[in-house]
């Protein structure tokens, strides 16, 4: 019986600690600027390479915008691409296909 109580107490304490840490992380402000945080988060979700992220940053500087703006707006991306001019065609196409083109999922049978 006492063992059960001890085990229950430890479990409860662990749960409380986990909740407190989660709450603290949730409430604490992000260390990054919000738009930079957004850029990194979405770039990660889109699986951009470091090279592609660097290209986005370079393009954003050329039109005096934030990188996240180019990641969301295709028109702005095209405009920056034309203005910057030094991005290779391969890189541009790779970014186009990863970020802005409609992607089709492969049927499950091919994933097996």
């Amino acid at each position: 019986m006492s063992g059960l109580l001890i085990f229950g107490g430890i479990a409860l304490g662990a749960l409380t600690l986990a909740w407190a840490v989660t709450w603290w992380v949730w409430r604490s402000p992000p260390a990054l600027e919000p738009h930079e945080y957004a850029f990194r988060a979405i770039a990660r979700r889109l699986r951009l390479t470091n090279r592609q992220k660097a290209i986005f940053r370079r393009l954003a500087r050329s039109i005096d915008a934030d990188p996240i703006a180019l990641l969301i707006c295709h028109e702005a991306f095209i405009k920056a691409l034309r203005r910057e001019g030094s991005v290779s065609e391969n890189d541009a196409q790779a970014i186009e296909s990863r970020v802005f083109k409609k992607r089709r999922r492969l049927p499950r049978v091919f994933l097996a």
Partner: protein
Amino acid sequence: MPALDVRLRLVRKLPQPAQVAALESALAVAGSTEGSEIALQLLDIAATEKPFLTVTGATGLFSRRRKPAQAIRPLLALLRAWSILGEDERAAAVAIAGRNIAAVLEMMADDRNLAHRLAAATIAASHPSAETIPILARLIIDSDDDVRSAAEAAIERISHARASLDPHAIDAFDRLLADAGRTFADHRKPGVISAIASQLDRPGPRLSQWLLDEHQTGLLALRGLLRRDQTPRTAQAAIGLLNHPTLQGAARTRLENLTTPQSRNAALSRWPALLIPVGARSLATMRRPDDVFPNDNEIAELDTETRIGVCVWATAMRLRPADRAHRLTRIALADDDRSALAAVRRLAALPRPDAEARNALFQASSVERAPLAQLAASALIDDRSPAARTWMQGLESSPCRGVRAIAERSTRRFNPWIPVTEGDPLGDAFEARRALKNDRDATIERVRELIRRGESGARIRAMRLAWRLRIDPDVELELLKALTEDDPRIVASAVLMLRRLPTSAAHSALLACVDHADPRVAANAIEALAWRAPAHPRVLLASDHPIARTRANAIRARLTTKTDRDATRGLQAMLEDDRPEHRVSALWVAQRTGQTGLSRVIARLLKGETDERVSVRGKRCARALLAQLRVRENAVIERHDPEPATGRRFDRLEEWK
């Protein structure tokens, strides 16, 4: 599925600050198609944020209050991008912002980004409200001239749209103009002065105070603008400013330069402002007064208000008597009743009417419009000229009954041997005084006889005549005897006529009549007693009398002494009485004695009143008290005292008038 949707869905999975920052950055560089999608996303975030809402969990343990910054962050992002948004998106953003827009605009005005401060000015101009207008007071003294110019343009735009603003926004705009006027030395924007000039015909309380402060730099600019401006609006405002201590001179200069017919007519039609003597006196000192008036051909095309204005101006200005009479005559002979009445009234007041003015009165007295004809005939009643006498004799066959009576009276006045009409003892007071002077004893005897017997109406008229001729001591016995009559009307009149008699018999009779069965007699007895001695114990006791009329007379008498502080409390108690007839009488007393101090009680009474008679009397009372307050307010303005002491009472009564 379009790719933008996918990316926006990824954005919406981020924490709120990151969402807003990402969308705001994207909105700044987006084209029209993508921009509208992004703006919709921001609107969606703003709409789902419920500012200042307490989210309470089941136990209260998880409750938290959303920070204001979190609530207004998406709004701030939207409004910063104001120039990019479409019309629908702008309207939606303002609607979602609601009252938070004031806080958002504050943050935009503090922003170091010039475009954001410009956007704040544009928002205030396009959506003027009590929340958006105050921000312009800060923007007009901004460090950047572009922002100051944008704020100036916004103020001008709002001044043009003032009529469509709600009362709170008008109040905020009034405060803004006063603040912007006060800081004129810092911004030097002429648009602010133009906006102030456009409000001069009805300035709010704060702008009025600013206008009274002679040390304001902006006032110099305003005077200059008033002198130079040629629009009808400033001409109209200038009339009201003739009473104004700091703008009087500039207003007079403006009125001396009424170059266009529109300006002239606008100024003439604002004639009620000249009813305040200061304004009329100021107008009298104008140079070239003849240039102001329309010529004979133009008069026919003027509207009623402008024609009345011609009459008022012609009376107020320093004109040659012949010129004044000529202008009034043109209006008096017009078809319009109101302006013709105004002209005839002024023609009648001329000290020495010339032939033209007299002819105009002759013609006006022969028209079939009763008020005009009577007024003109009354003006001729004392005219001793042979032409006037002949004309008045002709008027005895006028189709208008009132004119015929005036003509008969006039004829009798100049020919006393004509017998008086039936039922009118001793004719009018003029005739009676003449008779009293000629043969006092016979006249007194005749009045006694009329009081003693005859029909009730004639006996009461005879009592009143005795009072007017001050021969009531000579008819005291008849009055005392009349107290024993059965007709309460005669008794009530006799009681009232006894009030001036100092004898103990009269006093005892009055005391006895206080307890008379007829309420009219009792009320008159209290009135008569109060006339003799307002602090008489019977008068004080009658303040709680069960008969409304008696009680009202007692309270009224006590109020007129101005030393009896309990009288006001007594009137207040009567106003709050359960019996409707007591409330009606109390409202009558409040009206007659001008109890503006009880306006709150009267307004409260009317708010919950169900009795029709009380409501009718209450509205009449409220109207009368309002008129008194207005007169006082004008007097305050005239004394150059900016303190609007009567303002709050004024507002309370306004809704019940």
